[in-house]
């Protein structure tokens, strides 16, 4: 585990500065992992649905090609969605006089609570 995504330094952080840096690093690693996990799950779900309508004894070459395209397409769309959403949130936050529109919108996702689990 520690060799795969762990911190590069093996010495135990001692000073306040070192501990802070270690916590930040761990936090960012976990956030990135959480984001990747969400993406992998969604790509798997939607590309399986789109590319493997009737599962055979193995993935065909055609299905494999479809999966590659699908994955690229899903990520391309993720970037468009992200850009559009962030722009819109900026506009709405301004319109609402500084109220965080992203926090408001996240209520409509039906997810239990935001924060993607970093805060435990």
């Amino acid at each position, binding site marked *: 585990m520690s060799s795969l995504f762990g911190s590069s330094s093996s010495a135990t952080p001692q000073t*306040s500065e070192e501990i802070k840096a*270690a*916590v930040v690093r761990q936090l960012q690693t976990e956030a990135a992992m959480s984001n990747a996990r969400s993406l992998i799950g969604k790509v798997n779900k939607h590309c399986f649905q789109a590319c493997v309508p009737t599962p055979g004894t193995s993935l065909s070459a055609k299905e494999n090609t479809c999966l590659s395209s699908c994955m*690229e397409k899903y990520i391309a769309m993720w970037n468009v969605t992200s850009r559009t959403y962030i722009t819109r949130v900026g506009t709405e936050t301004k319109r609402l006089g500084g109220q965080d529109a992203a926090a408001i*919108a996240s209520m409509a996702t039906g997810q239990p609570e935001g924060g993607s689990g970093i*805060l435990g």
Partner: protein
Amino acid sequence: METQLDLTKLSENDKKELNQVLNNEAQKGNIQQTVHHLNEVCWQKCITSKITSGTLDKSEEACAQNCVDRWMDTSLSILQKLENMRGH
């Protein structure tokens, strides 16, 4: 995780800074989760034909943008309606 961190050794200043970083990461995570949700909804609405390429064509991209904006319209409208109901 891999190393035991003694948080009691943190200075007040570093604690404050860490708190700020934590809040920022939480907000970022929140936005990312919403984007994941939105992308899923819009994928289902906008990618309806067979997948033949790894890029979005013009109409798919336009659909994705409209989808996000109309979803925002919808959620803001619903929250507004709920807010109005609460006031009566």
